[in-house]
């Protein structure tokens, strides 16, 4: 059942992105930045976590979850460490995604010749 909801919710978020491409004529960079900000704001209202519980990877795989994870780290650190946590906690949860993307991309650039 979680697979069906992952498909539907993940697909729906991608459709939002596609509408921003086609209808509002935004560049990919603008679209991604907007989606990340939306994810951050939604988590600010504590609404992203219920979506993750409900849709699993359908909510954690789209880029909106990056915004959610940034806010999540900031708020958790804010809770644990006080005001400085707003700064120190931001990358706490997202480290896996950003680090993996940097490391794998760098290794790929060392090994692979570009195609096309």
């Amino acid at each position: 059942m979680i697979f069906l909801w992952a498909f539907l919710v993940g697909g729906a978020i991608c459709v939002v992105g596609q509408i921003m491409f086609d209808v509002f004529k935004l560049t990919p960079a603008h679209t991604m930045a907007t989606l990340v900000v939306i994810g951050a704001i939604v988590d600010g209202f504590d609404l992203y976590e219920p979506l993750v519980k409900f849709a699993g990877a359908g909510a954690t795989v789209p880029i909106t979850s990056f915004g959610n994870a940034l806010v999540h780290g900031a708020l958790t650190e804010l809770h644990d460490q006080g005001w400085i946590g707003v700064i120190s906690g931001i990358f706490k949860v997202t480290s896996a995604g950003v680090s993996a993307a940097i490391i794998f991309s760098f290794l790929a650039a060392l090994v692979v010749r570009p195609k096309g």
Partner: protein
Amino acid sequence: MSTKSTGSQKYKKMTMSPKEYQSFAKTREPSRSIFANCIRAFIIGGLICVLGQAIQEMFVHLMGMDREAASNPTVAVLILLSVILTCLGVYDKIAQWAGAGSAVPVTGFANSMCSAALEHRSEGLVLGVGSNMFKLAGSVIVFGVVAAFVVGIVHLILGTGGQ
């Protein structure tokens, strides 16, 4: 003055004014149906999320992680897959068909970084790969961090921080 007049003569030789040409070109553009694009984005985006769910279930059931702990390695595996497909030139083909369906998931984020890294490899490791890797992904990180900071400050002021 003389160059200006030859310039305007050049325009007169054209059978259409640039404005007319633009409107003409617009009518001849293949019309990309927004609805069809959305269906494609929905299918591919949904499938990538299902793949992510499958990887997450694998971590949960085979390695005994709880669901929250499994989401980080899941993202890392998806990014690895995306980087491999980008290196093979497959991801860009998928992206042409799927539009936002392959751009919005985290795999698209990795694709933008990897393709920037590959593209600028010839300029060297530091100036090419190092400084261009975040050319597209940088805006996502900058706006994400700024938004997270603002949300954090709002929670700090309202005294509602923490989960």
